[in-house]
């Protein structure tokens, strides 16, 4: 029996336990708390969405607020107490001799990955102790295709042996492009910035739609890693984008351990070029590029955007052929952090313990008659669990009150506030706790 199959059976058994006990709990008017429940993090991906209304003022981005947002997101993503612990959780093998690339997206200089995000990210990393000293900032390279694109996007070229380095693949310091290989029929050589200066990689993209591929986020950001991106655009770039990402992994290993989207501003029409069209004030983080792109695509789809349906490369990336990540909303745990700059979440200062708060995948999923929503709390707290529809309307309030430490399950029978049965479709469970909002998709099938 395959591991996946075994897991499936285990989940079913657990669901029976949960749903039976949940029913008993509801019947007796108390909230059931299972003694054992498997963590809902297997086969799921976490995406942290950090919003801060002070992130920008007009077109100016505050790098100090960005640093607070990044550190808050890193801690939540890794469930660690400090940003430094977060970096070591993301890159446990990190040493001072290891290079770290930050692949930005600056082909559109009116909406690039902003320096006000990239440099604070580098600063956070270089504050992390590795051995006797902190991680050397000169081991960090911020890069994209061309020097002039970096300059026009507000970056300072630096090929010296001091400070955070920054240059393009066309700079002699990069080593240029390597020998080409075939990727889905297209000859492509990889950037020396990736092959020679990025033992590990942070993919730092921006938030834009794309006339051809629907959206251009972290997966497509690697079009700036190859020599001839122009010939990878047929068929809405699908499966060129997943094929490229797979080729990078197969050729160079899993160097990319952190994916970040600079979502302070965004473009919903006419991208990838053009000026910003909306202000989002968000930074999105994940270890799963596919899940991050899925969530960011959802953000863009909240604006008038006619190219969303073309972004099929995200689902293809998650499919069996490429298996690059998760694009099933039921398996993506979204954690929202709001205004960390004004709620006292300071990098490395609050000494907070790992949050250990999770909103698990509901069982069964999809469901018809009823489903149990697992919640895990690392410390007691006031919680609110609600159901929303895809238009953002609150459909039902399932629980509001204090929950103790441990694992809980709350049942939902697919009805609205007044008990009316709801139509088939996608809904969202939203758990409010400690000023954060955790969200998951739920599918109701009538």
């Amino acid at each position, binding site marked *: 029996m395959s591991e996946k199959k075994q897991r499936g059976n285990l989940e079913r058994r657990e669901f029976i336990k949960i749903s039976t006990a949940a029913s008993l709990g509801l019947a007796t008017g108390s909230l059931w708390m299972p003694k054992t429940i498997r963590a809902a993090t297997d086969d799921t991906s976490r995406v942290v969405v950090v919003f801060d209304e002070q992130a920008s003022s007009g077109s100016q981005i505050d790098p100090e607020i960005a640093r607070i947002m990044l550190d808050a997101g890193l801690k939540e993503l890794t469930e660690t107490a400090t940003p430094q612990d977060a970096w070591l959780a993301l890159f446990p093998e990190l040493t001072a001799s290891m290079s770290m690339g930050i692949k930005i997206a600056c082909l559109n200089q009116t909406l690039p990955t902003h320096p006000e995000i990239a440099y604070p990210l580098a600063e956070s990393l270089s504050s992390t102790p590795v051995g006797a000293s902190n991680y050397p900032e000169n081991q960090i390279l911020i890069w994209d295709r061309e020097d002039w694109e970096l300059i026009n996007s507000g970056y300072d070229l630096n090929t010296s042996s001091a400070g955070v380095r920054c240059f393009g693949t066309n700079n002699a310091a990069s080593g240029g492009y390597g020998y080409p290989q075939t990727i889905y029929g297209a000859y492509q050589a990889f950037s020396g910035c990736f092959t020679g200066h990025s033992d590990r990689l942070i993919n730092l993209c921006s938030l834009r739609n794309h*006339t*051809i591929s629907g959206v251009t986020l972290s997966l497509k950001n690697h079009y700036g890693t190859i020599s*001839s991106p*122009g010939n990878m655009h047929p068929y809405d770039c699908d499966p060129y984008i997943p094929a490229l990402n797979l080729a990078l992994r197969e050729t160079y290993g899993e160097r990319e351990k952190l994916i970040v989207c600079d979502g302070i501003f965004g473009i919903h029409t006419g991208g990838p070029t*053009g*000026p*910003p069209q*909306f202000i989002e004030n968000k930074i999105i983080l994940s270890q799963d590029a596919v899940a991050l792109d899925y969530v960011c695509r959802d953000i863009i789809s909240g604006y008038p955007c006619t190219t969303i349906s073309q972004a099929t490369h995200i689902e293809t990336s998650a499919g069996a052929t490429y298996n690059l990540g998760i694009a099933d909303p039921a398996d993506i745990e979204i954690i929202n952090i709001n205004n960390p700059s004004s709620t006292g979440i300071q990098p490395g200062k609050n000494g907070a313990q790992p949050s250990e708060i999770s909103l698990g995948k509901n069982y069964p999923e999809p469901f018809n008659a009823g489903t149990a929503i697992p919640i895990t709390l690392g410390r007691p707290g006031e919680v609110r669990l609600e159901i929303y529809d895809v238009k953002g309307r609150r459909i039902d309030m399932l629980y509001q009150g204090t929950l103790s430490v441990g694992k809980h399950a709350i049942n939902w029978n697919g009805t609205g506030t007044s008990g009316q049965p709801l139509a088939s479709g996608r809904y969202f469970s939203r758990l409010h706790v400690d000023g954060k909002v955790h969200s998951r998709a739920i599918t109701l099938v009538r």
Partner: protein
Amino acid sequence: MNRRKYIISTISIIAAFVFTGFFSCAENPQNADSILVVDLLPASGAITGWDRSGSPGVAQTNDQLYSLINGASELYLQHGFVEGVLQDYDGTIGGEAANLGLFISDQSSPADVEALFDETEVVPTGLTPWDLGDEAYIDETLPFHITIHVRADRFYTRVTVEKNNAEEEAKSIAQGFAQTVVAEIQ
């Protein structure tokens, strides 16, 4: 005699063609068929206080256009793209330094550029119409920029300028650039 009449008539006709052609050229030193997009770029100082920043980026092939405007190039290629140019200008808006981007493309024919104009990924819907060229719109919905889209003859022109909290001034500057380009085309 008839032969002389014939010769005089022929000479007169030729002279008339030459004469007409001469004055036609004098009125329109740049025949629309021979215009290169780089020739349509306003010179430094043509709009007071605005100078070119760096060299223009010129695209005459698919790859060059991709390098210039990335994935957005596909729609231009679908609608008769011949060549395009991208030029930045530096000036001031609201008393602060500002950047203006000017993109002009030759789309082969007025019909092609009209079809390009109908693409909502190039010219979004809901913009403010403006009386310039064959069709023009001003995008006043952007948070930090003003953008103007114009089609005139077979050329598409887009002007994008930072607002710097001085929207009317920014619009006026953008309009000045658009008018200068269209005047050159016509």
